[in-house]
């Protein structure tokens, strides 16, 4: 198996590359990104590219990869601004799909990491979105619009290229020991924000289950679209009680205006799509991916509990220093004859 990972410099790209390196049936892992890898990698080749992945076509042909893992879809709009979101998500995916279907391409499988944001969050939503369910209202925020557009691109691609198996995975909000998301940032605050009078049903997926789910879709033939969220639900109030934090009530009207001072004071940036989640929540049906052979390690409540335990430990012992990619060091370990590689 020869695998190309997009977004190697993201948390997920690095994580999944690390997991793939361990598997003997994987012959080659090539990663592309604008940024450097975030974790130490032993045999993944890293190529720097621009955000829209214009060089992908050449890379696919040159490396003869059979599988593409597209982790470079941005679902956190606090990290990337509106215009760049479009560039990364829509144009990036467009180039990736074009490269995969180009003449001479050896790609037979594409796995995408997208988000349950494609369903939105509204008062008249079903409580458990199935993969076939449609949004009840059109997308209004840039990140949701771009992911919905990616969805449409993928749908067309599947119709046009039946010879390539596409697995599109919609992940719920992620919590874990290491990953930083809007929700993990909110739950780390001494006073956790909520919208007054609302206590929404939410789902979380553990960061380990995210990597395992991506690895499962890479290793098995599971074409189609799948929701990935820890089974069960938790309310925002329950999640706050699990981390034992007090809550700051945002007003139920003009909530959007209330987030501005919080952002300007650099307390927290709560994007609009998360504000609507704090009001109406979201649940997705998780049976399809389980039927496809995946076993969750964490339910939604267990994910929150694991996060709360990690926070308690962190408060005592602090956070370990983050890994920093150093090109010369990596080149040394990879290429120098001084390094002894164990057999196997």
């Amino acid at each position, binding site marked *: 198996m020869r695998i190309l990972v997009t977004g190697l410099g993201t948390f997920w790209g690095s994580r999944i590359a690390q997991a793939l390196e361990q598997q003997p049936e994987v012959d080659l892992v090539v990663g592309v990104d604008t940024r450097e890898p975030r974790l130490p990698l032993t045999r993944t080749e890293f190529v720097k590219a621009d955000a829209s992945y214009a060089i992908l076509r050449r890379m696919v042909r040159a490396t003869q990869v059979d599988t593409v893992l597209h982790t470079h879809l941005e679902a956190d709009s606090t990290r990337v601004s509106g215009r760049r979101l479009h560039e990364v998500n829509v144009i990036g995916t467009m180039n990736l799909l074009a490269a995969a279907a180009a003449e001479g391409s050896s790609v037979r499988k594409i796995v995408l990491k997208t988000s349950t944001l494609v369903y939105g969050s509204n*008062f*008249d*939503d*079903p*409580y*458990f*979105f*199935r993969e076939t*369910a449609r949004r009840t209202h059109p997308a209004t925020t840039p990140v949701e619009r771009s992911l919905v557009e990616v969805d449409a691109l993928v749908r067309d691609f599947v119709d046009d290229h039946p010879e390539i198996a596409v697995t599109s995975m919609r992940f719920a909000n992620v919590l*874990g*020991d290491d990953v930083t998301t809007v929700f993990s940032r909110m739950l780390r605050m001494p006073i956790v924000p909520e*919208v*007054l*009078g*609302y*206590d929404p*049903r939410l789902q979380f997926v553990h960061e*380990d289950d995210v990597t395992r789910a991506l690895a499962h879709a890479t290793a098995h033939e599971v074409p189609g679209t799948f929701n990935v969220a820890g*089974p*069960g*639900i938790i*309310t925002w*109030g*329950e999640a706050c*009680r699990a981390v034992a934090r007090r809550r700051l009530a945002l007003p*139920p009207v003009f909530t959007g205006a209330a987030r501005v001072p919080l952002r300007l004071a650099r307390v927290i940036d709560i994007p609009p799509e998360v504000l609507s989640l704090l009001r*109406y929540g979201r*649940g997705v*049906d998780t049976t399809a991916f389980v039927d496809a052979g995946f076993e*969750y*390690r*964490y*339910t*939604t*409540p*267990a994910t929150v*509990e*694991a*996060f709360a*335990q*990690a926070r308690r*430990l962190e408060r005592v012992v602090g956070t370990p220093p983050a890994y920093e990619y150093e090109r010369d060091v990596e080149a040394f370990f990879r290429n120098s004859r001084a390094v002894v590689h164990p057999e196997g």
Partner: protein
Amino acid sequence: MAASPEKPLRLVGDDAGATAAIAPAPDEELTLDELLRVDAWGRSEAVRALARTLYEPVYRHWLRAEWEGLEHVPLEGGALLIANHGGAIPSDAPVVMHGIETELLRPVYGLAENLFRQLPVLGTLWSRAGGVPAHPDNAYRLLHDDGQLVLVFPEGTKATGKLVRDRYQLRRFGRGGFVEIAMRAGVPIVPMAIVGNEEAMPILWKSARIAKLLGLPYFPITANQFVYGPVLGYVLPLPAKFRIRVLPPITFDVEPGLPRYNRGMVMEQAERIRSLVQTEVDDLLRDRRSVWRG
């Protein structure tokens, strides 16, 4: 580091899925977390228990609800309960939910217009008390996957927005969506005929213009407002005697799980059930000597 991933998981879907009987108050002390725990549908047994305690005097002594044929409500498995609807702010939903939960110790989920969900506090309370937005996917999952009792008023707001002179004249049963859901989920429909709901909060007059302005399905002036005042007149029911007649369950001889069912057959069944309920309502009205004493 984190919770050991190997430790056995408590899959939440499991305890919510079983047709849980309402447990009588346990002896041991519950922690705050357990007390505030909600199920997959946002329903909280603690909030329901509180609501039952508060509503019991209204149910028992004010509306004096009386049941016939309660044995037709199944003690296990999914079933779709349907009934005629009436009253500006209808009392029929809380009466039916309260009655079945206290008599049969089974939770009832009430599907309703999701107007409430947009309101802070009220929306949350409504959901904790067993209200679920009326989306076909929600109904199917509750009935088929979770095997629960689901209460639906097929007439919707067309019934509750009736003027007092139109009372007990059943409106169209929607587009028959409730029949289709029951067919797909493979569960029986249990029809109920209710009297008392219309007189508990009759609408004397309504303004289409104000309703449109406020984005409401109707804006009523109720008889209750002349008794209790302009605000409480939207909350407190008049002491109309409630009678609820449960009819034998209706099952459909179709294959469950299909994405679509024959439109004509669905509409025909919906109309059949509507006229069945109308007949029973008329029958109950024939026997009723007094609105207040029954």
